[in-house]
């Protein structure tokens, strides 16, 4: 079943068109990645899915229902969580408050405070610190945990491994694998292929606000040279 989908969406920033007729979807329990260069429109797609951008045309679907008109907070309560690119940790909340605020929504599920602390033990150590005193990697863990604690059905992750040391990246990849294994769908945005090749079932390649290629990870492996051209040197 398709959990969350965009159907032929156009998005504008002021007068500049950022997305051109984008259609994509995430199935339940699936890991999907969006790959593309900086400025290709990947983050815009995520923001459109979570309701922070308004599509000028096209529809947003949740389990087949039209949810185009819902606000971000309503979408969040449906079971969509968002881990933004710049993490957007609340600087004036402690680490633990950053986590507890996600539980206020009241969605039931397998994730609770104790479990995310087990997943990222370093957060437990830092639970009383203000959110913005964490290192980049810790902030990323906090952002992911915050998303998890809403117990969503799909988690949207915007470049979760960007700018992080390889060791931390590995840790995060493991965590994402585990999260997915428990039944949560992931929509992963990345600039490079490193993480998507390890995790994703299906991939979309975005360039200049449009989907240039899509297919399974196995397909991508076959066409790898061509796709690398779209995203890199």
């Amino acid at each position, binding site marked *: 079943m398709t959990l969350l989908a965009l159907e032929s969406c156009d998005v504008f920033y002021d007068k500049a068109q950022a997305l051109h007729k984008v259609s994509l979807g995430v199935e339940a329990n699936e890991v999907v990645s969006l790959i593309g260069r900086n400025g290709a429109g990947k983050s815009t797609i995520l923001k459109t899915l979570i309701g922070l951008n308004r599509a000028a045309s096209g529809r947003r679907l949740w389990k087949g229902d039209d949810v185009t008109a819902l606000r*971000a907070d309503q979408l969040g309560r449906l079971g*969509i969580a*968002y881990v933004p690119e710049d993490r957007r940790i609340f600087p*004036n*909340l402690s680490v633990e408050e950053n986590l507890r605020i996600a539980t*206020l*929504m009241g969605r039931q599920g397998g994730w609770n405070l104790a479990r995310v602390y087990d997943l990222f033990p370093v957060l437990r150590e830092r639970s009383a610190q203000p959110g913005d005193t964490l290192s980049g990697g810790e902030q990323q863990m906090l952002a992911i945990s915050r998303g998890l604690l809403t117990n969503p059905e799909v988690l949207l992750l915007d470049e979760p491994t960007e700018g992080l040391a390889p060791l931390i990246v590995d840790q995060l990849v493991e965590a994402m694998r585990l999260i997915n294994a428990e039944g949560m769908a992931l929509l992963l945005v990345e600039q490079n292929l490193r993480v998507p090749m390890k995790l994703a079932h299906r991939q979309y390649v975005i360039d200049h606000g449009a989907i240039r290629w899509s297919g399974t990870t196995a397909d991508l492996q076959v066409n790898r040279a061509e796709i690398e051209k779209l995203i890199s040197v």
Partner: protein
Amino acid sequence: MSTLIIGLSLSFLLFLLSAGLTLIFGMLGVINFAHGALYMLGAYVSYQIVQITGSFWLGLLFAPLIVAALGALIEIVALKRVYSRDHIFQLLLTFGLILVIDDATKLIWGFDYKQVPTPEMLTAPVALFGSQIPSYRLFVIAFGALVSLGLFLLLDRSKWGMIIRAASSDADMARTLGIDVNQVRTGVFALGSFLAALGGAITAPLVPIELGMGFSVIIDCFVVVIIGGLGNIRGAIFASLLLGMTRAVGFTYATEWVELLTFALLIGTLMFRPEGLFSYKGRSA
């Protein structure tokens, strides 16, 4: 010593007056010029309640609630429409509100002075440090301390405080966590109005209640808020103490310079730190 006590009572009055202003700024980014008008309204409504029920305490409880409801209404009907625009428009709108609230008050209560008597149990002065301290002043200190403590608990410890802080630092992110930021904003404006009216109700036994009273306090509020750092509650309490104590000492030794002392303090602070002693990006709400 009695100067210290009086200074404390001045400080807590200042804090009660300005807390709502800085709270609203911190959360909504709105400079609420109508804060003084809401304070005045708090005093008038509490007068009305005292007239009807004869109880100061009921006035102190219900006047802020009634004004808070009005604040919520104002936020929903008017302010909400201009959030997306430049800050200046919000300031202008609240400026227009002053005129409306002032005239509505005039329409309802007329011109003449109103008075709320000191509550019976607080009329007797208390002998302290070789001086007579009005027991109402001691009550103001205790009540002010209680309210500031309550405010800190609310903002720093409670679930609501967490939501308010989150929504003020990153509204969009808070939305994705299922928080209805619009409602939070309405709530915060109502809370700010509540605090303004609370200031009015608690000041009522100390001054004549009249139409100009809001006009005269707003500048004091701004001074506190600027010194403390816009939007910073902790800064506001610190600034209130600084200003209250300065005034108490000033009244003791050089009464006719007290007003200018206030501004000297302000300018001194700004020379030293242009964005206030505590910039509003600070950690606390």
